[in-house]
């Protein structure tokens, strides 16, 4: 059986999970594609995912209300073991990568981490992933029969419903260990903007925008005109101008939009590793020597204070004239 661990938030299946199911179907291993739903009050999640898979395993337990990698990994490993799963797929989000490492240790399995392709070759799973700060593509092979795979979000197109009856749902028994980490507080990032990972267009700002107000005016202002998501560099996040959830790069999010617009960003390798797979890269920077110009498709050597307001004005005017015609 191929076990797909369902990522969910606020009672909805996470977008990346549909990509996981697509990966599970393309892997070329036999056995039912089985969704595993862990959490508390997750009946809706199980029902939502059922049409896409062959069967659904549900562990609806109060102890699982809070995500804890150690607890979740124990649950996933137990179910994988009892269900004799040979392939366990998780989303390569930060939390998914953390618990997948634990699941691999628990099952004495290989871990294929953050893969962009994965396929069975005569019984062995072979995968591709990016390494060296996402500057090379590495080909790796699992050496164990049971394999844990974390799949990079946004690579596999979402699976369609199977068209057959929704997968049957089964409740599973679990021995849930107590959580050791006490979460004493949480500041959530709330945003009504399109998520970075889902956006076709991302406008990102760096220290070159001057300050928090400049970021709001230039980066958020341009993103509003384009219906784009907002990203930021580490320098901007460290300065407290923007929340960490918007950070793009090695220690932030990885994005691959159709268009990535870098505003006042120097183009440090740690930043590039989070966006260098974007289809089209645009850079605006006053320093013609900035490294970002070496990886961009279109660049403007100029002051963001004058170029970006001109863009905002022209796009707004174009929209107005279209609305009026």
């Amino acid at each position, binding site marked *: 059986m191929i076990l797909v661990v369902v990522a969910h938030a606020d009672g909805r299946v996470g977008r990346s999970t549909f990509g996981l199911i697509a990966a599970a179907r393309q892997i070329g291993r036999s056995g039912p594609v089985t969704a595993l739903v862990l959490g508390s009050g997750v009946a809706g999640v199980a029902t939502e995912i059922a049409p896409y898979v062959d069967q659904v395993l549900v562990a609806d337990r109060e102890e699982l209300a809070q995500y804890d990698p150690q607890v979740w990994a124990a649950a996933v490993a137990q179910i994988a073991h009892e269900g004799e799963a040979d392939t366990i797929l998780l989303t390569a989000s930060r939390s998914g990568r953390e618990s997948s490492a634990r699941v691999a240790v628990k099952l004495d399995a290989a871990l294929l981490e953050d893969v962009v392709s994965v396929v069975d070759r005569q019984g062995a799973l072979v995968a591709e992933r990016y390494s060296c700060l996402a500057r090379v593509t590495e080909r790796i092979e699992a050496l164990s029969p049971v394999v844990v795979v974390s799949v990079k979000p946004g690579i596999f197109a979402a699976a369609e419903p199977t068209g057959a009856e929704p997968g049957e749902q089964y409740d599973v028994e679990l021995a849930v260990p107590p959580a050791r980490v006490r*979460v004493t507080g949480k500041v959530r990032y709330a945003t009504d903007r399109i998520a970075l990972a889902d956006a076709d267009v991302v406008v990102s700002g760096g220290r070159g925008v001057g300050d928090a107000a400049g970021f709001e005016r230039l980066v958020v202002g341009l993103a509003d005109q384009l219906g784009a998501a907002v990203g930021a560099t580490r320098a901007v996040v460290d300065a407290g101008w923007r929340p960490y959830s918007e950070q793009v790069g090695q220690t932030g999010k990885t994005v691959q939009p159709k268009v990535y617009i870098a505003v006042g960003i120097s183009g440090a390798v740690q930043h590039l590793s989070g966006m260098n797979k974007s289809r089209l890269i645009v850079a605006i920077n006053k320093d013609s020597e900035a490294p970002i110009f070496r990886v961009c498709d279109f660049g403007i050597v100029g002051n963001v204070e004058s170029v970006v307001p001109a863009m905002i004005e022209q796009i707004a005017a174009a929209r107005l004239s279209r609305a009026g015609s």
Partner: protein
Amino acid sequence: MRILAIIRQVLDAEESVYVDNRTVDLKGRKLVMDTMDEYGVEEALRIRERGAEAEIVVVGIGPARFEEALRSALSMGADRAIHVETDQEVDPIALSGVVAAIARKEEAQMIFCGGQQADWDSQALGAAVAEHLDWPALTWTRKLELKGTTLAGQRDAEDGVESFEVDLPAVVTTQQDLNEPRYPTLPNIMKAKRKEIRRETLESFGVALKVRSHGVEAQNRERLREVIDGRDAAAAASQLVAMLREKAGVMA
């Protein structure tokens, strides 16, 4: 208390990547301690400087060249080092078994390692070590404070900043901005030359590799690199807007 800091030696981030014969060519390139791991070494030192009694042991598992990175950590102030020497590429899960074995033997109470390795782009090591030891792991920490045997702090979760408390032992993964790693002073560099680096063989740990690498390929994505002068802001902006419309279908 004993604290382990796990380090790797990697290509300096400022260096370009060249691929030769399906491997990243390191010959003649600048190699450094992985910055992500350096924050861990620094944090261990700071915990001690804030009053905890601790021996700080750096651990490196890799080829002979790793010794340089281990020496850097000793020059920063770590007490001694363990070098498990191997030319094999050991995958993070297999590696975590070696680290866990060392942690048991050394009776470690805390283990630091970088949040993501700059060579493998892997985030697995810290969590995998914790699982072997049945310890909690605090990943992507941004603030740490040790009160007795309770570790409190803040970490970056996916959807916000989490405050936490945990009783030791624990694994902690580190990242930029947790601290500002110190530069070794000359006296400390000299002192470090006399500190012990214990060598062990990978074979003595009996590890079974879990993943084999078939090598790497360079990503030669050609970019158009059409760069224009933006002194006339309105003209430059209109070229860009036109380009976005034509080439990317934005605002089409």
